Protein backbone atom coordinates (compact mmCIF):
# COMPACT_ATOMS: atom_id res chain seq x y z
CA UNK A 1 0.00 0.00 0.00
CA UNK A 2 1.31 3.41 -0.82
CA UNK A 3 1.68 5.89 1.98
CA UNK A 4 -1.51 7.67 2.94
CA UNK A 5 -1.91 10.46 0.42
CA UNK A 6 -5.36 11.55 1.42
CA UNK A 7 -7.03 10.51 4.59
CA UNK A 8 -10.79 10.73 4.69
CA UNK A 9 -12.32 13.45 6.83
CA UNK A 10 -11.85 12.96 10.53
CA UNK A 11 -8.88 10.59 10.41
CA UNK A 12 -7.20 10.06 13.74
CA UNK A 13 -4.56 12.61 14.55
CA UNK A 14 -3.70 14.83 17.46
CA UNK A 15 -5.53 18.16 17.40
CA UNK A 16 -2.50 20.39 16.55
CA UNK A 17 -1.28 17.92 13.92
CA UNK A 18 -4.76 17.74 12.52
CA UNK A 19 -4.98 21.52 12.24
CA UNK A 20 -1.57 21.66 10.61
CA UNK A 21 -2.50 18.93 8.16
CA UNK A 22 -5.77 20.65 7.29
CA UNK A 23 -3.90 23.86 6.64
CA UNK A 24 -1.48 22.04 4.36
CA UNK A 25 -4.35 20.30 2.60
CA UNK A 26 -6.21 23.58 2.15
CA UNK A 27 -3.11 25.11 0.58
CA UNK A 28 -2.64 22.21 -1.80
CA UNK A 29 -6.30 21.47 -2.60
CA UNK A 30 -6.95 20.95 -6.29
CA UNK A 31 -10.36 22.65 -6.50
CA UNK A 32 -10.62 22.00 -10.24
CA UNK A 33 -10.03 18.30 -9.66
CA UNK A 34 -12.57 18.21 -6.84
CA UNK A 35 -15.18 19.94 -9.02
CA UNK A 36 -14.49 17.50 -11.84
CA UNK A 37 -14.83 14.61 -9.40
CA UNK A 38 -18.11 16.05 -8.08
CA UNK A 39 -19.49 16.42 -11.60
CA UNK A 40 -18.21 12.94 -12.48
CA UNK A 41 -20.06 11.58 -9.48
CA UNK A 42 -23.30 13.26 -10.56
CA UNK A 43 -22.83 12.09 -14.13
CA UNK A 44 -22.29 8.54 -12.90
CA UNK A 45 -25.53 8.69 -10.86
CA UNK A 46 -27.39 10.15 -13.81
CA UNK A 47 -26.15 7.53 -16.26
CA UNK A 48 -26.79 4.77 -13.74
CA UNK A 49 -30.39 5.95 -13.20
CA UNK A 50 -31.00 6.15 -16.93
CA UNK A 51 -29.52 2.69 -17.45
CA UNK A 52 -31.73 1.20 -14.77
CA UNK A 53 -34.86 2.76 -16.32
CA UNK A 54 -33.79 1.53 -19.76
CA UNK A 55 -33.39 -1.97 -18.35
CA UNK A 56 -37.17 -2.05 -17.75
CA UNK A 57 -38.46 -0.11 -20.75
CA UNK A 58 -42.06 -1.32 -20.59
CA UNK A 59 -42.47 -0.69 -16.86
CA UNK A 60 -40.79 2.71 -17.12
CA UNK A 61 -42.95 3.64 -20.10
CA UNK A 62 -46.15 2.63 -18.28
CA UNK A 63 -45.20 4.71 -15.24
CA UNK A 64 -44.51 7.71 -17.49
CA UNK A 65 -47.77 7.09 -19.35
CA UNK A 66 -49.85 7.01 -16.16
CA UNK A 67 -48.18 10.22 -15.03
CA UNK A 68 -48.54 11.75 -18.50
CA UNK A 69 -52.28 11.05 -18.62
CA UNK A 70 -52.71 12.50 -15.14
CA UNK A 71 -50.79 15.62 -16.20
CA UNK A 72 -52.61 16.02 -19.51
CA UNK A 73 -56.12 16.02 -17.96
CA UNK A 74 -55.97 19.34 -16.07
CA UNK A 75 -53.75 20.89 -18.73
CA UNK A 76 -56.14 19.81 -21.51
CA UNK A 77 -59.18 21.09 -19.65
CA UNK A 78 -57.42 24.36 -18.97
CA UNK A 79 -56.59 24.77 -22.66
CA UNK A 80 -60.21 24.00 -23.62
CA UNK A 81 -61.46 26.58 -21.13
CA UNK A 82 -59.02 29.10 -22.58
CA UNK A 83 -60.55 28.39 -25.99
CA UNK A 84 -64.09 28.88 -24.72
CA UNK A 85 -62.98 32.06 -22.94
CA UNK A 86 -61.53 33.36 -26.21
CA UNK A 87 -64.76 32.52 -27.95
CA UNK A 88 -66.82 34.15 -25.19
CA UNK A 89 -64.60 37.22 -25.39
CA UNK A 90 -65.17 37.63 -29.10
CA UNK A 91 -68.92 37.30 -28.57
CA UNK A 92 -68.77 39.82 -25.77
CA UNK A 93 -66.98 42.26 -28.01
CA UNK A 94 -69.92 41.84 -30.38
CA UNK A 95 -72.38 42.77 -27.61
CA UNK A 96 -75.03 45.11 -29.01
CA UNK A 97 -77.75 47.37 -27.66
CA UNK A 98 -81.14 47.14 -29.38
CA UNK A 99 -82.86 50.56 -29.47
CA UNK A 100 -86.58 50.07 -30.14
CA UNK A 101 -88.15 53.08 -31.82
CA UNK A 102 -91.72 54.15 -30.96
CA UNK A 103 -94.31 52.95 -33.46
CA UNK A 104 -95.45 56.46 -34.31
CA UNK A 105 -91.98 57.61 -35.34
CA UNK A 106 -91.71 57.99 -39.10
CA UNK A 107 -88.96 56.37 -41.17
CA UNK A 108 -87.25 59.72 -41.82
CA UNK A 109 -87.21 60.63 -38.14
CA UNK A 110 -85.95 57.17 -37.32
CA UNK A 111 -83.03 57.52 -39.76
CA UNK A 112 -82.20 60.88 -38.14
CA UNK A 113 -82.20 59.14 -34.77
CA UNK A 114 -79.81 56.51 -36.16
CA UNK A 115 -77.46 59.25 -37.36
CA UNK A 116 -77.62 60.94 -33.97
CA UNK A 117 -76.74 57.68 -32.27
CA UNK A 118 -73.95 56.88 -34.77
CA UNK A 119 -72.40 60.24 -33.94
CA UNK A 120 -72.03 59.41 -30.27
CA UNK A 121 -68.35 58.87 -29.27
CA UNK A 122 -69.08 55.59 -27.44
CA UNK A 123 -70.77 54.11 -30.49
CA UNK A 124 -68.83 52.16 -33.07
CA UNK A 125 -71.70 51.48 -35.41
CA UNK A 126 -75.46 52.01 -35.61
CA UNK A 127 -77.57 49.96 -38.02
CA UNK A 128 -81.16 50.78 -38.97
CA UNK A 129 -83.64 47.88 -39.20
CA UNK A 130 -86.97 49.20 -40.44
CA UNK A 131 -90.33 47.71 -39.39
CA UNK A 132 -90.80 45.78 -42.66
CA UNK A 133 -87.22 44.50 -42.67
CA UNK A 134 -87.68 43.31 -39.09
CA UNK A 135 -90.85 41.45 -39.96
CA UNK A 136 -89.14 39.78 -42.93
CA UNK A 137 -86.27 38.61 -40.72
CA UNK A 138 -88.71 37.30 -38.14
CA UNK A 139 -90.64 35.41 -40.82
CA UNK A 140 -87.39 33.99 -42.18
CA UNK A 141 -85.75 32.84 -38.97
CA UNK A 142 -88.61 32.10 -36.55
CA UNK A 143 -90.33 29.38 -38.55
CA UNK A 144 -93.60 31.24 -38.04
CA UNK A 145 -93.68 32.75 -41.52
CA UNK A 146 -97.24 31.70 -42.45
CA UNK A 147 -98.70 32.69 -39.07
CA UNK A 148 -97.05 36.11 -39.24
CA UNK A 149 -98.50 36.68 -42.73
CA UNK A 150 -101.98 36.40 -41.23
CA UNK A 151 -101.40 39.42 -38.95
CA UNK A 152 -103.48 42.43 -40.02
CA UNK A 153 -100.75 44.96 -39.08
CA UNK A 154 -97.00 44.79 -38.57
CA UNK A 155 -96.60 44.86 -34.77
CA UNK A 156 -92.82 45.22 -34.84
CA UNK A 157 -91.11 48.51 -34.09
CA UNK A 158 -88.12 49.78 -36.05
CA UNK A 159 -84.84 49.07 -34.33
CA UNK A 160 -81.44 50.79 -34.26
CA UNK A 161 -78.83 48.12 -33.59
CA UNK A 162 -75.97 49.82 -31.73
CA UNK A 163 -72.46 48.35 -31.52
CA UNK A 164 -70.59 50.09 -28.68
CA UNK A 165 -66.87 50.78 -28.59
CA UNK A 166 -66.56 49.87 -24.90
CA UNK A 167 -67.20 46.36 -23.65
CA UNK A 168 -67.07 47.32 -19.99
CA UNK A 169 -70.38 46.43 -18.38
CA UNK A 170 -70.77 49.74 -16.48
CA UNK A 171 -70.00 51.78 -19.60
CA UNK A 172 -72.48 49.73 -21.59
CA UNK A 173 -75.16 50.29 -18.96
CA UNK A 174 -74.49 54.06 -19.03
CA UNK A 175 -74.80 54.12 -22.81
CA UNK A 176 -78.01 52.10 -22.66
CA UNK A 177 -79.55 54.64 -20.26
CA UNK A 178 -78.57 57.55 -22.49
CA UNK A 179 -80.05 55.83 -25.56
CA UNK A 180 -83.25 55.04 -23.66
CA UNK A 181 -83.65 58.74 -22.85
CA UNK A 182 -83.48 59.91 -26.49
CA UNK A 183 -86.73 61.27 -27.93
CA UNK A 184 -88.62 58.72 -30.09
CA UNK A 185 -87.02 55.77 -28.25
CA UNK A 186 -89.41 53.32 -26.64
CA UNK A 187 -86.86 50.92 -25.10
CA UNK A 188 -83.10 50.33 -25.16
CA UNK A 189 -82.16 46.72 -24.36
CA UNK A 190 -78.71 45.46 -23.43
CA UNK A 191 -78.54 41.69 -23.17
CA UNK A 192 -75.32 40.71 -21.46
CA UNK A 193 -76.90 38.12 -19.19
CA UNK A 194 -75.76 35.18 -21.29
CA UNK A 195 -72.22 36.54 -21.34
CA UNK A 196 -72.34 36.80 -17.54
CA UNK A 197 -73.64 33.26 -17.32
CA UNK A 198 -70.87 32.05 -19.60
CA UNK A 199 -68.38 33.91 -17.42
CA UNK A 200 -69.76 32.22 -14.30
CA UNK A 201 -69.57 28.81 -15.99
CA UNK A 202 -65.97 29.49 -17.03
CA UNK A 203 -65.12 30.54 -13.49
CA UNK A 204 -66.63 27.32 -12.21
CA UNK A 205 -64.62 25.45 -14.85
CA UNK A 206 -61.43 27.19 -13.71
CA UNK A 207 -62.09 26.12 -10.13
CA UNK A 208 -62.81 22.59 -11.26
CA UNK A 209 -59.57 22.49 -13.23
CA UNK A 210 -57.64 23.84 -10.23
CA UNK A 211 -59.18 21.24 -7.90
CA UNK A 212 -58.52 18.50 -10.43
CA UNK A 213 -54.93 19.69 -10.88
CA UNK A 214 -54.28 19.67 -7.12
CA UNK A 215 -55.79 16.19 -6.77
CA UNK A 216 -53.82 14.82 -9.70
CA UNK A 217 -50.58 16.41 -8.48
CA UNK A 218 -51.05 14.55 -5.20
CA UNK A 219 -51.80 11.37 -7.14
CA UNK A 220 -48.65 11.92 -9.21
CA UNK A 221 -46.53 12.34 -6.10
CA UNK A 222 -47.93 9.04 -4.86
CA UNK A 223 -47.22 7.32 -8.20
CA UNK A 224 -43.62 8.57 -8.26
CA UNK A 225 -43.20 7.87 -4.56
CA UNK A 226 -44.43 4.32 -4.90
CA UNK A 227 -42.30 3.66 -7.97
CA UNK A 228 -39.21 5.01 -6.25
CA UNK A 229 -40.05 2.96 -3.15
CA UNK A 230 -39.89 -0.16 -5.32
CA UNK A 231 -36.54 1.00 -6.73
CA UNK A 232 -35.28 1.44 -3.17
CA UNK A 233 -36.49 -2.02 -2.16
CA UNK A 234 -34.71 -3.53 -5.17
CA UNK A 235 -31.47 -1.81 -4.17
CA UNK A 236 -31.71 -2.34 -0.43
CA UNK A 237 -28.52 -4.42 -0.26
CA UNK A 238 -26.60 -1.88 -2.30
CA UNK A 239 -27.80 1.00 -0.12
CA UNK A 240 -26.72 -0.84 3.00
CA UNK A 241 -23.24 -1.42 1.58
CA UNK A 242 -22.99 2.23 0.49
CA UNK A 243 -23.92 3.37 3.99
CA UNK A 244 -21.41 0.95 5.53
CA UNK A 245 -18.54 2.37 3.49
CA UNK A 246 -19.42 5.96 4.37
CA UNK A 247 -22.03 7.05 1.86
CA UNK A 248 -24.05 10.02 3.09
CA UNK A 249 -27.82 10.23 2.76
CA UNK A 250 -27.28 12.72 -0.07
CA UNK A 251 -25.12 10.21 -1.95
CA UNK A 252 -27.71 7.47 -1.49
CA UNK A 253 -30.55 9.80 -2.47
CA UNK A 254 -28.96 11.12 -5.67
CA UNK A 255 -29.69 8.32 -8.19
CA UNK A 256 -33.31 8.11 -7.01
CA UNK A 257 -33.77 11.85 -7.49
CA UNK A 258 -32.43 11.50 -11.02
CA UNK A 259 -34.81 8.58 -11.61
CA UNK A 260 -37.75 10.69 -10.36
CA UNK A 261 -36.71 13.56 -12.61
CA UNK A 262 -36.48 11.19 -15.60
CA UNK A 263 -39.96 9.86 -14.87
CA UNK A 264 -41.14 13.48 -14.72
CA UNK A 265 -39.55 14.44 -18.03
CA UNK A 266 -40.92 11.31 -19.70
CA UNK A 267 -44.38 12.02 -18.32
CA UNK A 268 -44.18 15.67 -19.40
CA UNK A 269 -43.23 14.72 -22.96
CA UNK A 270 -45.99 12.12 -23.15
CA UNK A 271 -48.53 14.60 -21.76
CA UNK A 272 -47.46 17.16 -24.37
CA UNK A 273 -47.85 14.59 -27.14
CA UNK A 274 -51.24 13.45 -25.83
CA UNK A 275 -52.48 17.04 -25.63
CA UNK A 276 -51.31 17.93 -29.15
CA UNK A 277 -52.92 14.82 -30.54
CA UNK A 278 -56.12 15.19 -28.49
CA UNK A 279 -56.62 18.86 -29.30
CA UNK A 280 -55.94 18.25 -32.98
CA UNK A 281 -58.45 15.40 -33.00
CA UNK A 282 -61.09 17.53 -31.21
CA UNK A 283 -60.37 20.53 -33.39
CA UNK A 284 -61.77 18.84 -36.50
CA UNK A 285 -65.21 18.69 -34.85
CA UNK A 286 -64.91 22.17 -33.31
CA UNK A 287 -64.06 23.78 -36.66
CA UNK A 288 -67.06 22.05 -38.28
CA UNK A 289 -69.37 23.20 -35.49
CA UNK A 290 -68.05 26.77 -35.57
CA UNK A 291 -68.54 26.93 -39.35
CA UNK A 292 -72.27 26.28 -38.82
CA UNK A 293 -72.35 29.53 -36.82
CA UNK A 294 -70.33 31.46 -39.42
CA UNK A 295 -67.34 31.45 -37.11
CA UNK A 296 -63.77 30.65 -37.97
CA UNK A 297 -63.05 29.63 -34.36
CA UNK A 298 -60.55 26.81 -33.93
CA UNK A 299 -58.76 25.29 -30.96
CA UNK A 300 -55.06 26.11 -30.89
CA UNK A 301 -52.36 23.54 -30.12
CA UNK A 302 -50.35 23.61 -26.90
CA UNK A 303 -48.53 26.97 -26.75
CA UNK A 304 -44.77 26.55 -26.46
CA UNK A 305 -44.50 28.38 -23.13
CA UNK A 306 -47.30 26.21 -21.71
CA UNK A 307 -45.54 23.10 -23.00
CA UNK A 308 -42.25 24.17 -21.42
CA UNK A 309 -44.04 24.92 -18.13
CA UNK A 310 -45.62 21.47 -18.34
CA UNK A 311 -42.19 19.85 -18.78
CA UNK A 312 -40.63 21.87 -15.96
CA UNK A 313 -43.57 21.13 -13.64
CA UNK A 314 -43.46 17.42 -14.48
CA UNK A 315 -39.71 17.27 -13.82
CA UNK A 316 -40.19 19.05 -10.50
CA UNK A 317 -43.03 16.72 -9.53
CA UNK A 318 -40.91 13.66 -10.30
CA UNK A 319 -38.00 15.05 -8.32
CA UNK A 320 -40.14 16.05 -5.32
CA UNK A 321 -41.98 12.71 -5.34
CA UNK A 322 -38.67 10.85 -5.36
CA UNK A 323 -37.23 13.05 -2.63
CA UNK A 324 -40.24 12.42 -0.38
CA UNK A 325 -40.08 8.67 -0.99
CA UNK A 326 -36.34 8.43 -0.30
CA UNK A 327 -36.60 10.64 2.79
CA UNK A 328 -39.32 8.38 4.14
CA UNK A 329 -37.53 5.08 3.48
CA UNK A 330 -33.89 6.01 4.01
CA UNK A 331 -34.11 5.83 7.80
CA UNK A 332 -35.40 2.27 7.54
CA UNK A 333 -32.38 1.25 5.50
CA UNK A 334 -29.67 1.27 8.12
CA UNK A 335 -27.18 -1.54 7.55
CA UNK A 336 -27.78 -4.63 9.68
Amino acid at each position, binding site marked *: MSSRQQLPRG*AEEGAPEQRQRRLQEAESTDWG*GLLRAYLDSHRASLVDSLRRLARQPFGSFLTCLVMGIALSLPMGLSLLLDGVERLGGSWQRAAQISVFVKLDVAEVEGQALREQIAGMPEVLNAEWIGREQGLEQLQQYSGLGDALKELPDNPLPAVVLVTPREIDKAALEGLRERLAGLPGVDLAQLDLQWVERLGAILKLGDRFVFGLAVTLVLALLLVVGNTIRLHIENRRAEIEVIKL*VGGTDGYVRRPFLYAGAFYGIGAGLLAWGLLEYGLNWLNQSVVGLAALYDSDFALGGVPLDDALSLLAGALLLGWVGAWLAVARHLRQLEPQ
Partner: protein
Amino acid sequence: MIRFEQVGKRYPNGHVGLHELSFRARRGEFLFVTGHSGAGKSTLLRLLLALERPTSGKLLLADQDIGSISNSEIPFLRRQIGVVFQNHHLLFDRSVFDNVALPLQILGLPREEIEQRVSEALERVSLKDMGEQFPSDLSSGQQQRVGIARAVVHQPALLLADEPTGNLDPRLAAEIMGVFEDINRLGTTVLIASHDLALIARMRHRLLTLQRGRLIGDGEPT
Protein backbone atom coordinates in the same frame (compact mmCIF):
# COMPACT_ATOMS: atom_id res chain seq x y z
CA MET B 1 -7.14 4.43 18.20
CA ILE B 2 -9.91 2.51 19.97
CA ARG B 3 -10.89 3.15 23.58
CA PHE B 4 -13.68 1.26 25.35
CA GLU B 5 -14.35 2.67 28.84
CA GLN B 6 -16.92 0.68 30.82
CA VAL B 7 -18.98 0.34 27.66
CA GLY B 8 -22.35 -1.35 28.08
CA LYS B 9 -24.99 -2.20 25.54
CA ARG B 10 -28.45 -3.18 26.69
CA TYR B 11 -31.19 -3.78 24.12
CA PRO B 12 -34.80 -2.67 24.60
CA ASN B 13 -35.83 -6.31 25.15
CA GLY B 14 -33.51 -6.48 28.16
CA HIS B 15 -30.75 -8.51 26.49
CA VAL B 16 -27.28 -7.33 27.47
CA GLY B 17 -24.90 -7.31 24.48
CA LEU B 18 -21.88 -5.92 26.31
CA HIS B 19 -21.25 -5.48 30.01
CA GLU B 20 -18.87 -2.73 31.18
CA LEU B 21 -16.28 -3.55 28.53
CA SER B 22 -12.95 -1.74 28.81
CA PHE B 23 -9.89 -2.05 26.59
CA ARG B 24 -7.66 0.07 24.37
CA ALA B 25 -6.06 -0.59 21.03
CA ARG B 26 -3.16 1.45 19.69
CA ARG B 27 -2.87 2.70 16.17
CA GLY B 28 -1.28 -0.01 14.00
CA GLU B 29 -2.18 -2.84 16.38
CA PHE B 30 -3.48 -6.21 15.19
CA LEU B 31 -6.02 -7.87 17.48
CA PHE B 32 -8.53 -10.65 17.48
CA VAL B 33 -11.83 -10.80 19.33
CA THR B 34 -13.16 -14.24 20.05
CA GLY B 35 -15.92 -15.88 21.99
CA HIS B 36 -18.87 -18.18 21.53
CA SER B 37 -21.98 -17.20 19.66
CA GLY B 38 -23.73 -14.45 21.65
CA ALA B 39 -20.52 -13.46 23.46
CA GLY B 40 -20.75 -9.90 22.12
CA LYS B 41 -18.30 -9.96 19.17
CA SER B 42 -20.87 -8.65 16.68
CA THR B 43 -22.14 -6.06 19.15
CA LEU B 44 -18.59 -4.79 19.56
CA LEU B 45 -18.16 -4.44 15.79
CA ARG B 46 -21.58 -2.81 15.42
CA LEU B 47 -20.66 -0.25 18.06
CA LEU B 48 -17.38 0.55 16.31
CA LEU B 49 -19.26 1.07 13.05
CA ALA B 50 -21.79 3.31 14.83
CA LEU B 51 -24.56 0.97 13.73
CA GLU B 52 -25.54 1.04 17.38
CA ARG B 53 -24.78 3.36 20.27
CA PRO B 54 -23.54 2.28 23.69
CA THR B 55 -26.14 2.56 26.43
CA SER B 56 -23.46 3.26 29.06
CA GLY B 57 -19.76 4.07 29.25
CA LYS B 58 -17.65 5.80 26.68
CA LEU B 59 -16.44 4.53 23.31
CA LEU B 60 -13.83 6.60 21.50
CA LEU B 61 -12.71 5.86 17.97
CA ALA B 62 -10.05 8.14 16.57
CA ASP B 63 -10.88 10.56 19.41
CA GLN B 64 -14.52 10.71 18.35
CA ASP B 65 -17.10 9.73 20.95
CA ILE B 66 -19.43 7.28 19.22
CA GLY B 67 -22.01 7.72 21.96
CA SER B 68 -22.51 11.37 21.14
CA ILE B 69 -21.59 11.64 17.47
CA SER B 70 -24.38 13.16 15.35
CA ASN B 71 -26.11 11.09 12.67
CA SER B 72 -24.75 13.35 9.94
CA GLU B 73 -21.17 12.69 11.15
CA ILE B 74 -21.52 8.90 11.04
CA PRO B 75 -20.75 8.49 7.31
CA PHE B 76 -17.53 10.47 7.79
CA LEU B 77 -16.58 8.28 10.75
CA ARG B 78 -17.20 5.15 8.65
CA ARG B 79 -14.87 6.48 5.96
CA GLN B 80 -12.01 5.87 8.40
CA ILE B 81 -13.01 2.24 8.70
CA GLY B 82 -12.81 -0.66 6.30
CA VAL B 83 -15.12 -3.61 6.90
CA VAL B 84 -14.82 -7.20 5.73
CA PHE B 85 -17.80 -9.51 6.14
CA GLN B 86 -18.07 -13.26 6.24
CA ASN B 87 -20.59 -13.19 3.39
CA HIS B 88 -18.63 -10.52 1.47
CA HIS B 89 -21.55 -8.10 0.88
CA LEU B 90 -20.50 -7.56 -2.73
CA LEU B 91 -22.76 -5.95 -5.32
CA PHE B 92 -23.35 -8.61 -7.93
CA ASP B 93 -24.54 -6.26 -10.66
CA ARG B 94 -21.24 -4.38 -10.60
CA SER B 95 -17.84 -5.47 -11.82
CA VAL B 96 -15.01 -6.26 -9.41
CA PHE B 97 -13.49 -2.89 -10.29
CA ASP B 98 -16.72 -1.02 -9.52
CA ASN B 99 -17.16 -2.91 -6.24
CA VAL B 100 -13.70 -1.94 -5.09
CA ALA B 101 -14.05 1.62 -6.39
CA LEU B 102 -17.23 2.28 -4.40
CA PRO B 103 -15.60 3.84 -1.27
CA LEU B 104 -13.45 6.06 -3.48
CA GLN B 105 -16.44 7.21 -5.52
CA ILE B 106 -18.17 8.09 -2.25
CA LEU B 107 -15.09 10.07 -1.22
CA GLY B 108 -15.38 11.94 -4.53
CA LEU B 109 -11.86 11.22 -5.75
CA PRO B 110 -10.89 11.99 -9.36
CA ARG B 111 -11.30 9.14 -11.84
CA GLU B 112 -7.56 8.76 -12.51
CA GLU B 113 -6.85 8.40 -8.80
CA ILE B 114 -9.67 5.89 -8.40
CA GLU B 115 -8.26 3.77 -11.23
CA GLN B 116 -4.79 3.85 -9.71
CA ARG B 117 -5.91 3.00 -6.17
CA VAL B 118 -8.27 0.22 -7.27
CA SER B 119 -5.52 -1.27 -9.36
CA GLU B 120 -3.15 -1.20 -6.37
CA ALA B 121 -5.78 -2.72 -4.04
CA LEU B 122 -6.55 -5.53 -6.48
CA GLU B 123 -2.87 -6.24 -6.93
CA ARG B 124 -2.47 -6.47 -3.16
CA VAL B 125 -5.09 -9.23 -3.00
CA SER B 126 -3.71 -10.97 -6.14
CA LEU B 127 -6.69 -10.10 -8.33
CA LYS B 128 -4.96 -7.57 -10.56
CA ASP B 129 -6.39 -8.79 -13.86
CA MET B 130 -9.90 -9.53 -12.64
CA GLY B 131 -11.30 -5.99 -12.50
CA GLU B 132 -13.65 -6.55 -15.42
CA GLN B 133 -15.09 -9.76 -13.98
CA PHE B 134 -18.28 -9.89 -11.98
CA PRO B 135 -18.41 -11.34 -8.44
CA SER B 136 -20.56 -14.24 -9.64
CA ASP B 137 -17.64 -15.35 -11.86
CA LEU B 138 -15.33 -15.69 -8.84
CA SER B 139 -14.77 -18.37 -6.23
CA SER B 140 -15.70 -17.72 -2.61
CA GLY B 141 -12.05 -17.05 -1.71
CA GLN B 142 -11.70 -14.60 -4.58
CA GLN B 143 -14.93 -12.87 -3.55
CA GLN B 144 -13.54 -12.50 -0.05
CA ARG B 145 -10.40 -10.94 -1.47
CA VAL B 146 -12.52 -8.48 -3.45
CA GLY B 147 -14.23 -7.63 -0.16
CA ILE B 148 -10.83 -7.03 1.43
CA ALA B 149 -9.70 -4.89 -1.50
CA ARG B 150 -12.85 -2.78 -1.11
CA ALA B 151 -12.23 -2.48 2.63
CA VAL B 152 -8.67 -1.19 2.25
CA VAL B 153 -8.81 0.74 -1.03
CA HIS B 154 -9.49 4.05 0.75
CA GLN B 155 -6.61 3.41 3.15
CA PRO B 156 -8.67 3.36 6.33
CA ALA B 157 -7.18 3.89 9.75
CA LEU B 158 -9.06 0.86 11.10
CA LEU B 159 -9.95 -2.43 9.42
CA LEU B 160 -12.73 -4.53 10.96
CA ALA B 161 -13.42 -8.07 9.86
CA ASP B 162 -16.28 -10.24 11.01
CA GLU B 163 -15.46 -13.96 10.62
CA PRO B 164 -13.57 -13.24 7.39
CA THR B 165 -12.41 -16.84 6.97
CA GLY B 166 -15.59 -18.52 8.13
CA ASN B 167 -16.41 -20.01 4.72
CA LEU B 168 -12.88 -20.71 3.55
CA ASP B 169 -10.68 -23.80 3.66
CA PRO B 170 -7.57 -23.59 5.92
CA ARG B 171 -5.20 -22.81 3.04
CA LEU B 172 -7.33 -19.91 1.79
CA ALA B 173 -7.94 -18.75 5.36
CA ALA B 174 -4.18 -18.52 5.95
CA GLU B 175 -3.78 -16.64 2.67
CA ILE B 176 -6.44 -14.13 3.67
CA MET B 177 -4.84 -13.65 7.07
CA GLY B 178 -1.57 -12.98 5.28
CA VAL B 179 -3.28 -10.17 3.39
CA PHE B 180 -4.53 -8.71 6.69
CA GLU B 181 -1.01 -8.81 8.11
CA ASP B 182 0.35 -7.02 5.02
CA ILE B 183 -2.23 -4.31 5.49
CA ASN B 184 -1.44 -4.05 9.19
CA ARG B 185 2.26 -3.64 8.45
CA LEU B 186 1.38 -0.45 6.56
CA GLY B 187 -0.03 1.11 9.75
CA THR B 188 -3.68 0.15 9.64
CA THR B 189 -5.20 -1.05 12.92
CA VAL B 190 -6.80 -4.45 12.31
CA LEU B 191 -9.51 -5.95 14.50
CA ILE B 192 -10.85 -9.37 13.53
CA ALA B 193 -13.78 -11.14 15.15
CA SER B 194 -13.32 -14.87 14.78
CA HIS B 195 -14.03 -18.12 16.59
CA ASP B 196 -11.32 -20.03 14.68
CA LEU B 197 -9.02 -20.55 17.68
CA ALA B 198 -6.51 -22.64 15.75
CA LEU B 199 -6.00 -19.88 13.23
CA ILE B 200 -5.80 -17.24 15.97
CA ALA B 201 -3.20 -19.29 17.83
CA ARG B 202 -1.03 -19.49 14.72
CA MET B 203 -1.15 -15.72 14.16
CA ARG B 204 0.11 -14.82 17.67
CA HIS B 205 -1.52 -11.41 17.94
CA ARG B 206 -3.33 -9.85 20.87
CA LEU B 207 -6.56 -11.69 21.66
CA LEU B 208 -9.65 -10.36 23.43
CA THR B 209 -11.94 -13.08 24.70
CA LEU B 210 -15.58 -12.28 25.37
CA GLN B 211 -18.13 -14.29 27.26
CA ARG B 212 -21.74 -13.16 27.65
CA GLY B 213 -20.77 -9.58 26.93
CA ARG B 214 -17.86 -9.51 29.41
CA LEU B 215 -14.15 -9.37 28.66
CA ILE B 216 -12.64 -12.47 30.24
CA GLY B 217 -9.25 -12.45 28.57
CA ASP B 218 -6.84 -9.96 27.05
CA GLY B 219 -3.41 -11.06 25.87
CA GLU B 220 -1.53 -13.27 23.43
CA PRO B 221 -3.13 -16.63 22.64
CA THR B 222 -1.70 -19.58 24.44
